[in-house]
């Protein structure tokens, strides 16, 4: 008798996931996958949205920009998020995707506190990251070997940094770290290190933010492109989004989210931008078309 019970409960146990999957189909499910930089914003917005629309079901996952783009292209998810333009990624047919730019995030070069440098020119940055300058003395700092910490190959932040600063030149082969947090931790504790992180992570007294050509890395300098190191945060859908997905994207682009949540997380509202940038890094003035 005992054995029989065990068998039955085993079958029940195996069948349980099927039931659970079946149940969740009652609600309109929106799955959003991709950029880990955009994840906190979408997660928070998703929670707020759920409170107002109780039958909504928004699932947010990280995984990286590449995952986001390939999953949305494959039709596996409703929205793929990315830090980079889809048409710059090999293997992605951007013409099939719709691009919704929902926020702007700045990127700042950072160094260890002890290097004795707080300002670099873009040319010096390029020379450091391509391995031509190897000592802080060469850029007016202390006699200290430069240790470059890069982000993982293909990460959105790294792609943006390399497009805008290295301009297509190959970066020196160096340490790579997966996350903003780890990069910050390493730079704050290791003498001679240099790296770059996105603005929301940069407010830390233990690291030296580097200005470029004496322009301070602040959110005020981004809308005019005075601080040129920034990228869009994209939400991509495959073709026209369905009704629920469209409603959620509209919510993300609404004044409420753009004015309150976006700055709170450390991003810049898309509405504040006075210039636009396309995937070839061409800058165009908007001239107050938004506000």
């Amino acid at each position, binding site marked *: 008798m005992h054995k029989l019970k065990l068998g039955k409960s085993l079958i029940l146990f195996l069948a349980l996931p099927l039931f659970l999957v079946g149940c969740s189909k009652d609600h309109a499910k929106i799955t959003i996958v991709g950029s880990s930089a955009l994840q906190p914003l979408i997660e928070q917005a998703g929670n707020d949205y759920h409170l107002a629309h109780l039958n909504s079901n928004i699932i947010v996952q990280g995984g990286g920009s590449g995952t986001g*783009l*390939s999953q949305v292209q494959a039709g596996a998810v409703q929205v793929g998020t990315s830090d980079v333009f889809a048409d710059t990624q090999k293997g992605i047919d951007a013409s099939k995707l719709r691009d919704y730019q929902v926020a702007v995030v700045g990127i700042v070069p950072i160094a260890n506190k002890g290097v004795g440098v707080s300002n670099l020119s873009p040319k010096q940055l390029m020379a450091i990251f391509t391995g031509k300058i190897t000592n802080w003395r060469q850029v007016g700092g202390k006699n200290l070997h430069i240790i470059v910490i890069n982000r*993982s*190959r293909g*990460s959105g932040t790294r792609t943006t940094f390399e497009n805008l600063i290295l301009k297509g030149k190959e970066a020196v*082969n160096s*340490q790579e770290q*997966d996350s903003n947090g780890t990069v910050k931790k*390493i730079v704050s504790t290791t003498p001679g290190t240099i790296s770059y992180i996105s603005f929301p992570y940069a407010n830390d007294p233990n690291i030296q933010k580097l200005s470029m050509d004496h322009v301070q890395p602040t959110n005020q300098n981004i809308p005019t492109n005075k601080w040129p190191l920034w990228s869009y945060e994209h939400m991509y859908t495959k073709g026209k989004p369905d009704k629920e997905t469209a409603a959620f994207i509209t919510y993300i682009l609404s004044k409420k989210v753009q004015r309150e949540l976006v700055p709170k997380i450390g991003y810049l509202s898309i509405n504040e931008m006075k210039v636009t940038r396309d995937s070839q890094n061409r800058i165009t003035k908007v001239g107050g078309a938004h506000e």
Partner: protein
Amino acid sequence: MNKHEQDLQEVVDQAIAQQKVAHVKFKKIDPESVDITRLTSQSKETRQERWGKGLTALAIVIIAILIVAIIGFVGVHGLATFVNDKVNIFHFLFSSSWNPSAGKDHVGAAAMIVTSFAVTLLAALLATPFAIAIALFMTEYESGKQTRFLQSVMELLVGIPSVVYGFLGLTVIVPVIRTIFGGTGFGILAATLILFVMVLPTITSLTVDAFKAVPKDLRQSSAALGATRWQTIYHVVLRAARPRILTAIIFGMARAFGEALAVQMVIGNAVLMPYNLVSPAATLTSQLTSQMGNTVMGTLPNNALWSLALLLLIMSLVFNFLVRLIGKKR
């Protein structure tokens, strides 16, 4: 008496003659009184037995399909680099130029292969003497409270998630290495030290089993010949347990080879051929975990990562094979 019963009686008589059984008496059964349907129909126990067999078979089939699917999936994706993208397999194994997004001339995994083997071998080399010492202490010298204490310590070490080890490495070991050796502190040495702690319990508990499996008679005979305890351990116990100890080491190495997260946090992830123990490097697993999310399915960079995964899978099969081989020799 029919023919059948006569045969039986004969056997019984023989047994009695050989004094195997004392006395057997046959009772005649009236054929009319036997309930034939009850005897020929399935009993409840048989049904249970069938149920159990069926369930077990089902589970085995599911697992088998799963394994074949995993190997097939990783194989197809991993081979795409060589079949679709026409990367030379020798180039992949022996070149250390790794930048798949730059084209097929930059798909060389040698630096990662070397680093993976280096951390694995070093961790095993470092952990084995400690493991043997602890195991000897637990089986040959103490068998009471201390052993139970050590046992629970080992179990605790196994239970700690690898991210915790990685974080400890990042905040404690890396800075220590940096202050002693300079540089960033990231590298093979840091990874080895972390893996040492992670594989130690695996190797230790399997070595304990190895010593326990050595028959008591051997120790007693050795003692009877006048050998000291150390002589017994060195010449008898260690020799007798050697195949099992080797198995233990290989199990530990398999664990070290496949460990991803903790290693990724302390190795530095620079795909460079390591030239010393404190220069940043990258293992197969650390590259896989840090890059998979950034590549687009079906492109060369993605396929190249699958090739790394295939290499890992093959290595774990090799480790398994080695364990079986050593087990057979015993």
